[in-house]
């Protein structure tokens, strides 16, 4: 066999279970990248036929038809038609249909069949359809459509072998079909789809009562909001309390590694670089991996279970008032993990002004990179006690307050922007509500692993790089005896210059020093302080052992700490976010605008916080 590896594209409506099928077919053998020139995520992977021949699979964004309404839907059309730059036209289409929603999903299938590519239909989630009292005749559907129809349950890996065999067959035996033109207009297309669905349905009992009962509670005009707020609150409490043992273990591990390097190598330039630069800096950031993963876990679970769309429904009223739509809720909630995927997720917002506004406020959502900063400062300054006899922790409450400040700030900014720079028509909000589903552990684990890998790669490149540069700046020139090395070094002098600007808002030399490298990524603020701390400690083992939190608790006033927290609610310190904004808005105008307004807000917020705290005697 010398033939090229066949490439098969998975296509289907949103919520057809495409991604689960893709995961089931490829396992962990997938690669996520971007389509060149656009920031639509390209998910590709490998699988093999029963006899071991490889095939490549590509998971296309879900769409309703070949007429796109958003950027990712346009990619789906272009790939299928072979018009996407750098992408070969797929050898076969694997059309994924939700068995319980045939009359709607068959519309798109009919449109795809008219393209005359080798096609196989996966009648997915047949188990859920059966649960809802729907029995289908796949054979009948196959005869009517003229292509193989294979019943599958992606999450239980049922029907996968049959599916691949059918794809193999379809490619080998493909002859241009008699052109079955798709019905010319929407109404007749729907009529044809409905007729096909009716023919394929053997028995049917009325709709899913179970989902309806849950929705009556979850979408209750008052109760639904209470549940949403409670879920968010539990999420942020969990991020703080569940992660602690894992973070402690990681921190201990970094400590062990540092002592091992100190004990095993002679005291020289390289050892200093590794212990004080790399290990202190990168280690200070890597310990936050557990928190980031817990946050992502919640977001992934909310998404996979179908709740996220309900949340969007509930929030649409509020977001509509500031000129956004419930569509923006999902990108904004993703931005709590990281603004980069959040901004990328705005592609699903059809209205251009709505989308731009959502991009501009995404950095105000408290992303996971702020967690290291918040955790450090809260841990050092806020006592770990319960609030007035309740089981609610004060530290978690402060964290919740910081998240809330970001959200309120974002809504206010959106309100102003939609009436000034991004003025436009009221936007629509049209979305399908997926049915509830039990999230599958495998799908969640694959996604979590991908996030963890992205974070660690960042820690290994951007963060390690900036930390090393910072270490060099802080180590040279060598300070004469009796003078502080950090103050005397190049880095220290730059920080002293910046200190003049930030002194009015209560920032000290430690902070000024951390702010510059933190432009690369917010969490570098913590690693920068850790590196400075390690250099300052020098050979003093006792000072070295003292945790960074304890050290700053002794050196900063509470007012300064609070001002620092307020700064990070707004400050746009993340090169990746600025870069993705430039790419998503095609130019420098909007990222520059974003950076400008966010720095202004950060400065004002930190200042007001500091002056207020000082007035209350916390200076």
């Amino acid at each position, binding site marked *: 066999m010398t033939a090229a590896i066949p490439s098969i594209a998975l296509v289907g409506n949103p919520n057809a279970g495409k991604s689960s099928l893709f995961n089931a077919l490829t396992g962990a053998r997938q690669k996520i990248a971007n389509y060149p020139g656009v920031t639509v995520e390209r998910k590709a992977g490998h699988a093999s036929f029963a006899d071991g021949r490889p095939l490549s699979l590509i998971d296309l964004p879900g769409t*309703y*038809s070949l*007429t796109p*309404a958003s950027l990712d839907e346009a990619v789906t059309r272009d790939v299928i038609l072979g018009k996407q730059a750098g992408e070969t036209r797929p050898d076969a289409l694997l059309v994924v249909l939700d068995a*319980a*929603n045939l*009359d*709607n999903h068959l*519309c798109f299938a009919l449109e795809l069949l008219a393209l005359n590519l080798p096609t196989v239909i996966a009648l997915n989630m047949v188990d859920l359809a059966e649960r*809802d009292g*729907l029995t289908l005749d796949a054979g009948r559907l196959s005869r009517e459509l003229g292509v193989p129809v294979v019943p599958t349950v992606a999450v239980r890996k049922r029907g996968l072998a049959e599916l691949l065999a059918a794809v193999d067959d379809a490619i080998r035996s493909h002859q241009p079909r008699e052109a079955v033109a798709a019905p010319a207009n*929407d*109404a007749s297309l*729907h009529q044809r789809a409905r007729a096909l669905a009716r023919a394929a349905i053997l028995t049917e009992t009325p*709709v*899913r009562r179970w*989902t*309806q009962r849950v*929705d009556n509670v979850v*979408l209750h*005009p*008052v109760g*639904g*909001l209470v549940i949403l707020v409670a879920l968010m609150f539990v999420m942020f409490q969990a991020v703080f309390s569940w992660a602690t043992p894992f973070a402690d273990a990681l921190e201990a591990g970094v400590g062990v590694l540092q002592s091992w390097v100190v004990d095993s190598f002679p005291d020289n330039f390289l050892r200093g670089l590794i212990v004080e630069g790399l290990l202190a800096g990168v280690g200070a950031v890597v310990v936050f991996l557990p928190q980031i993963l817990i946050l992502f876990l919640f977001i992934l679970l909310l998404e996979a279970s179908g709740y996220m*769309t309900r949340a*969007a*429904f*509930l*929030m*649409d*009223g*509020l977001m*509509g*008032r500031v000129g956004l739509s*419930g569509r923006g809720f999902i990108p904004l909630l993703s931005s709590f993990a990281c603004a980069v995927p959040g901004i990328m997720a705005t592609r699903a917002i*059809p209205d251009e002004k709505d989308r731009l506004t959502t991009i501009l406020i995404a950095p105000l959502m408290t992303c996971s990179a702020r967690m290291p900063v918040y955790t450090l400062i809260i841990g050092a300054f806020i006592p770990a006690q319960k609030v007035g006899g309740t089981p609610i922790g004060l530290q978690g409450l402060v964290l919740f307050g910081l998240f809330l400040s970001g959200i309120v700030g974002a809504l206010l900014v959106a309100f102003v922007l939609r009436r000034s720079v991004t003025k436009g028509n*009221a936007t*629509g*909000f*049209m*979305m*399908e*509500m997926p*049915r509830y589903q039990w999230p599958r552990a495998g799908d969640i684990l694959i996604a979590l692993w991908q996030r963890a890998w992205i974070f660690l790669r960042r820690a290994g490149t951007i963060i390690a790089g900036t930390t090393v540069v910072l270490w060099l700046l802080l180590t040279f020139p060598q300070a004469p005896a009796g003078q502080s090395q950090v103050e005397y070094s190049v880095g220290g002098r730059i920080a002293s210059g910046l200190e003049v600007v930030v002194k009015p808002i209560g920032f000290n030399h430690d902070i000024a020093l951390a702010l510059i490298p933190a432009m690369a990524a917010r969490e570098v603020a913590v690693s920068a302080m850790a590196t400075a701390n390690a250099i300052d400690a020098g050979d003093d083992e006792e000072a070295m052992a003292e945790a960074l939190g304890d050290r700053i608790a002794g050196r900063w006033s509470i007012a300064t700490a609070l001002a620092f927290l307020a700064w990070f609610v707004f400050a746009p310190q993340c090169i990746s976010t600025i870069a993705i904004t430039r790419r998503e808005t095609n130019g420098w105008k909007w990222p520059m605008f974003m950076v400008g307004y966010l720095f202004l807000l950060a400065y004002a917020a930190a200042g007001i916080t500091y002056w207020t705290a000082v007035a209350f005697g916390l200076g």
Partner: protein
Amino acid sequence: MTALLDKAPLGARVRIARIDWDAMSADEGRRLREFGLMEGCEVTPLHRGSILSRDPLALAIGRMKVIIRARQAAAIEVESAA
């Protein structure tokens, strides 16, 4: 008796009598049709926003549930599906 969908009582099945396609953009109209919302089909309004605003409207259409804005629902004339 016809009424507008944005005012229709929740939980009662109605048939779409007429849609004023000119009241919405071409994209919005197309998305409505992709959802299967067109003249002659039957829908059940189920939920209406939250107390923050009674705006988005969730509808059951066949075995699918979709969300649209009240502004779009106001362009849809319905009659009781007796």
